[in-house]
């Protein structure tokens, strides 16, 4: 629930309150639940409405509740910790959890005296840990960027690849592979391709469709999205042409596209960490303003926000994070859509909750997907993008069929 303790927080209003302050907190939970129920069933039983009003009557004298994403955040953090532990514990080497923990501990500054075989330490520290951390970073970026794009374009179908990141990254990687530059340049080329594609989309889209609206009111969202479609189609066509001309590299390009974290290294982690940190920081800093945007660009402008600048800032940050993720992981689909929407349905639509919880949840989801990718066909590796779609699809359909979904996505 979005509000911590509605009723338990008179916040200095000084009114005498029921001594049953704690039960009142429960009542506040109930009131939100009742309000939810009333919301879910606009056509539902008429009794839901008065009961909601009655229950929330408890809050009459309280100051406005404070937005607290605390509980959802805590659950997501625990889930991420569990996923990370699972990630380092599972693998073909068959190390027991105790051995993994001891291997992890040997590199800590004040570690206990343990006799862990060097090879186990190497497996944990040089193979599994970078893989798990990289998966977490990529998952956090994709889910966070997806949530941010959905907010800034006010479109539930927006995903991190909306503005051509995937097509640009794919073309960049393809160019590098086809040119035979060696694997060292594939990632920078993918990053550059992704960034150039989004810049192109933004320039073409925001210049078009300008009517009589005043500067700073946005007003070009639809044309930016459409420009993204056009740019993506164009770049994909070029990529297809290149592949047709260089069919001997088809396999290599294809495996990059499908995504693979099995060869992750600390150097890759170091490569994307700065971008990920900047992107996450900027996006999180704008979470309140993403909530303001929920009333539309024009009203947001009238509330004192330069919408065009806000949109550009968020798109830049999300693109930076996504491009970095794509450059090391290939194109992992679906994370950027299903994670934010699942968070919305579970914890409410406020971006103060959706953004941080999506990042944690996306990280956890991709770490687990990577575990599945490594194990279901061991010793072979299934492309992680296949896992996210196969596992995520049915789960998301289940979530979508919930009653609450009908309201939240209305």
């Amino acid at each position, binding site marked *: 629930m979005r*509000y911590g303790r509605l009723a338990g927080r008179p916040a200095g209003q000084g009114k005498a309150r029921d001594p049953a302050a704690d039960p009142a907190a429960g009542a506040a939970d109930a009131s939100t639940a009742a309000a939810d129920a009333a919301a879910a069933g606009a056509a539902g039983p008429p009794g839901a409405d008065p009961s*909601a009003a009655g229950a929330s009557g408890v*809050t009459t004298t309280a*100051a406005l509740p404070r937005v607290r994403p605390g509980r959802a955040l805590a659950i997501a953090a625990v889930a991420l910790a569990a996923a990370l532990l699972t990630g380092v514990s599972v693998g073909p080497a068959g190390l027991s959890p105790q051995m993994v923990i001891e291997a992890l501990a040997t590199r800590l500054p004040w570690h206990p005296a343990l006799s862990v075989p060097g090879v186990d330490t190497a497996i944990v520290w040089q193979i599994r840990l970078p893989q798990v951390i990289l998966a977490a970073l990529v998952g956090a970026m994709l889910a966070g960027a997806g949530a941010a794009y959905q907010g800034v374009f006010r479109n539930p179908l927006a995903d991190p690849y909306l503005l051509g990141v995937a097509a640009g990254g794919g073309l960049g990687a393809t160019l590098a592979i086809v040119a035979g530059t060696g694997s060292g340049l594939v990632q920078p080329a993918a990053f550059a391709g992704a960034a150039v594609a989004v810049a192109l989309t933004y320039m073409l889209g925001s210049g078009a469709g300008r009517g009589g609206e*005043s500067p700073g009111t946005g007003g070009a969202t639809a044309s930016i999205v459409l420009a993204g479609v056009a740019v993506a189609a164009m770049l994909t066509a070029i990529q297809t042409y290149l592949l047709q001309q260089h069919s001997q590299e088809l396999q290599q390009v294809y495996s990059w596209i499908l995504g693979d974290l099995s060869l992750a290294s600390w150097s890759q982690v170091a490569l994307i960490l700065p971008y990920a940190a900047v992107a996450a920081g900027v996006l999180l800093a704008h979470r309140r303003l993403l909530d303001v945007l*929920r009333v539309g660009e*024009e009203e947001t402008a009238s509330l004192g926000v330069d919408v065009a600048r806000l949109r550009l800032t968020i798109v830049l940050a999300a693109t930076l994070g996504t491009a970095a993720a794509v450059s090391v992981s290939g194109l992992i689909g679906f994370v950027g859509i299903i994670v934010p929407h699942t968070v919305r349905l579970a914890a409410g639509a406020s971006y103060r909750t959706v953004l941080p919880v999506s990042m944690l949840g996306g990280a956890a989801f991709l770490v687990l997907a990577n575990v599945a990718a490594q194990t279901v066909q061991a010793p072979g590796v299934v492309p992680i993008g296949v896992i996210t779609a196969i596992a995520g699809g049915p789960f998301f359909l289940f979530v979508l069929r919930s009653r609450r979904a009908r309201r939240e996505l*209305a």
Partner: protein
Amino acid sequence: MIAFEQVRVRYGDVAVLDGISERAADAEWVALIGPNGAGKTTLLRAAARLVRHDGIITIGGVPTTRMSRRQLARLVAYVPQRPQLPPAMTVADYVMLGRNPHIGYLRTETAADRRVCSGLLERIGMASYAARALATLSGGEAQRVILARALAQEAPVLLLDEPTSALDLGRRADALELIDTLRRESALTVVSAVHDLTLAGQFADRLVLLDGGRIAAAGTPKEVLRADVLAARFGTGVQVMTTPDGDLAVISRRPGTAGAGGAPPGARPASAWPPGGPPADPGR
């Protein structure tokens, strides 16, 4: 407080506003009336700087074009005709949006902001609705919450575009009454587009009749709500009457019966008028 000087707005080759000069003093309520397409909404949008305009719009003597969006939003609160209400957003969160101009760019709201919002919700009698989702509100409740969001901006100028268009007749008078009370409490300047001429005359200090992007008439309700003035803009089916308690009522007649009634002002018995005036919907 807010002054318009030769304001022009063009959409392509079409002049939607063509040289509007008008002003609204502190604590004054000016209602913009006029037929559809007269430019009422565009004038409000120009004042909120949501549409490019030529000419000068000043607030407290400062041109709006010299202000940042944040500065402007501290001086002008704008409520469009159909505000977007995110269905899952709570009433508390929605009203808090109005505090945005007072909250630092990357900051979050303070206890003082929350006090302003809870005070407003209490003032409009909706304190118990704080945790309700907007989708669960009735039209009248939503209208009050929208007003609370605008008031949360604590701006001295309130621009309202058809604030009552979604409400039934009784709620319209209630909503305008609430706006009137609040503007007197806080000495707000209100500029509103109002379709219902009778209500406009009852609540506004001054009426500005727009037609074709120009001011056709301006003055007190008595000066503007005259059959000869209105007929030129709304057609001849408009009839102005004086209610027994002195209000002006503007009603439309069916084309076939025009001229047949011809009842002199105040001729009807008092019991014929429901409180708040007759059901007037002037020739649209």
